[in-house]
C-alpha cells in the first residue's frame, strides 16, 4: 500500500465503490422474483422460510452491512458494540413490524437512498467531519434514527413479496428474528476481521482511508437508488 500514489488510490477507491454498488444491485433486491411466487403460495404461518429470508437479506444486504461496519469501526469494548447494535436493532425492528402491520407503502428507492445516506453519515462521522464542523451529534440517537429507516427498507422488501395476511404476524416476527440472526453472523465476521486489522500498526494509518471508502460506497448506493427513483 505504501507505494500507492494519491491518484491510483482514488482509482482503487472508486473501483471498490462501484463494486459495492453493483453488489447492492444484485443483492438488495434478492427478495424479489425467485422467492416471490413461493412466498405468495404460503397461506398461514411458515416461520422457517421467513426466518431464512430475513437472515439472508441481512447477510447479503451490503447497505445494512456497510452501516454496521461504520457503526462499530471505532468501538473497542464489547459492551459498546452491544449498546450501539441494540439501538440499531430497536430502530429497525420498530419500523419493520409497524410498517408491515400498518401496510405502510413507501417507495423502496427512496428508502434505500436514505439507507445509503446513513452509510455516508456514519463514514463522515468516523472521519471526524462533524467535530471539525463543530457539530455535536448524539451518536447513539443517530444510530437509532437511521435504524428506523433501515427497518422501513426491510418492511418495504417484505411487503413487496406480497405475503398472505393469513399468519402474517408469525411470519413477520420470524422474518425479524431472522434479520437479527443474520446481523449477529455478519457482525461476528466483521468484528473478528476488524480486530485482526486493529492489532497491526496499519490500522492507525488506514482507518482514515477505510472510512473514505465507506463514504464513497455510501455515495454510490445513494446515487444508484436516486437514479432508480428517477427512472421509475
Amino acid at each position, binding site marked *: 500500500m505504501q507505494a500507492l500514489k494519491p491518484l491510483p488510490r482514488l482509482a482503487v477507491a472508486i473501483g471498490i465503490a462501484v463494486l459495492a454498488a453493483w453488489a447492492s444491485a444484485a443483492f438488495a433486491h434478492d427478495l424479489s422474483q*425467485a*422467492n416471490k*411466487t*413461493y412466498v*405468495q*403460495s*404460503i*397461506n398461514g404461518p*411458515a*416461520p*422457517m*422460510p421467513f426466518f*431464512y*429470508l430475513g*437472515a*439472508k437479506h441481512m447477510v447479503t444486504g451490503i447497505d445494512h452491512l456497510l452501516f454496521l461496519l461504520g457503526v462499530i469501526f*471505532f468501538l*473497542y469494548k464489547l459492551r459498546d458494540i452491544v449498546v450501539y447494535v441494540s439501538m440499531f436493532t430497536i430502530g429497525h425492528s420498530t419500523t419493520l413490524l409497524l410498517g408491515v402491520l400498518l*401496510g405502510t*407503502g413507501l*417507495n423502496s428507492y427512496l428508502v434505500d437512498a436514505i439507507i445509503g445516506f446513513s452509510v455516508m453519515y456514519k463514514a463522515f462521522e*468516523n*472521519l*471526524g467531519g462533524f*467535530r*471539525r464542523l463543530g457539530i455535536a451529534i448524539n451518536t447513539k440517537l443517530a444510530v437509532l434514527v437511521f435504524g428506523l429507516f433501515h427497518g422501513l427498507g426491510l418492511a418495504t422488501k417484505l*411487503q*413487496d413479496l*406480497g405475503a398472505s*395476511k393469513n399468519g402474517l404476524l408469525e411470519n413477520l416476527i420470524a422474518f425479524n428474528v431472522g434479520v437479527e440472526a443474520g446481523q449477529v*453472523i455478519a457482525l*461476528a465476521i466483521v468484528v*473478528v476481521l476488524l*480486530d*485482526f486489522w*486493529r*492489532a497491526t500498526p496499519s*490500522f*492507525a494509518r488506514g*482507518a*482514515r482511508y477505510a472510512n473514505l471508502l465507506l463514504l464513497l460506497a455510501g455515495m454510490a448506493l445513494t446515487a444508484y437508488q436516486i437514479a432508480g427513483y428517477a427512472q421509475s
Partner: protein
Amino acid sequence: MTDFAPATPPVTLPSRRRVIAGSAIAAVVLALALVFFIMPAELGIDLTGFGERSGLTGLAQKGPAANVYLQRGLQRKNVLFPLPADARPDEATLRATLAAHGMAAPAKLQTDHWQVELQPYENIEMKYLLKQGEPMIFAWRASAPVHVDQHSVPDQGGNPATESFVITDASAQTAVYVAPFTGIHGWFWQNQSLNPVTVSIEATGAFGRAVIFDQGGEHPRQLQPR
C-alpha cells in the same frame, strides 16, 4: 489531518489457541447453516429432511414449480380458454367459445359488472360461485398493471386444495372459464404501485352469487346485471 486521531487503544492479536478454537466454532456454525438452511433453501439439497418439514426447500424452487397451487391448476385441461382482449364478455361469445371446444352452456346465464379502486399496495379478491362444469366468460381491466392470481377454492378441501390458473402482473384478462370443481372461482388483485388503480370486470356466466375478500374479511356481493 491532526484532529483525526480517535482513541485507538492497543489491540493484541489473539493467541494461537483462541484462533484455533474460534475457527473451529465458526466451521461448526457454517456446517450447520449449510446443511440445515442454505443447501435446502438455495439448492433444494435436503440431507436431514428438515428442509422439507420446515418449508425451506420451497425457496429453492423456481418458476411455476415454485407454486404448488399453480402447479396443480396448470395440469387441468379445458378449464381456461384465453380470448383476445377485445372479445365481448357476453352470452354469444361464451356459447361460441364453448361450442368450438365441444361444450355447451346452460340455458340460464347471469350478467354482472363490478369495479373497485385499490389504494397503493392494497389487494382484494372477488370470486363467483360456480358448480363443477359451469362456465363463465369474463373481461377485467386495470388502469395500471396489477399483480393477479386467478384461482379457485373447492368446497371440498378448502384453501389447501386451491388451484391457480394464472399468476402474473397484467392490466387485462379476457377468457372463458369452466369450473373444474364446485367452489368459488375468481381473482386476487394487488396494486403494487404508489398510485390508486381501478380494476373493473364484466362477466356472463352460470354463477348465482359472488363473494369478496378484503382486509375486513369475507363479504357476500350482490350481482349487478348489465
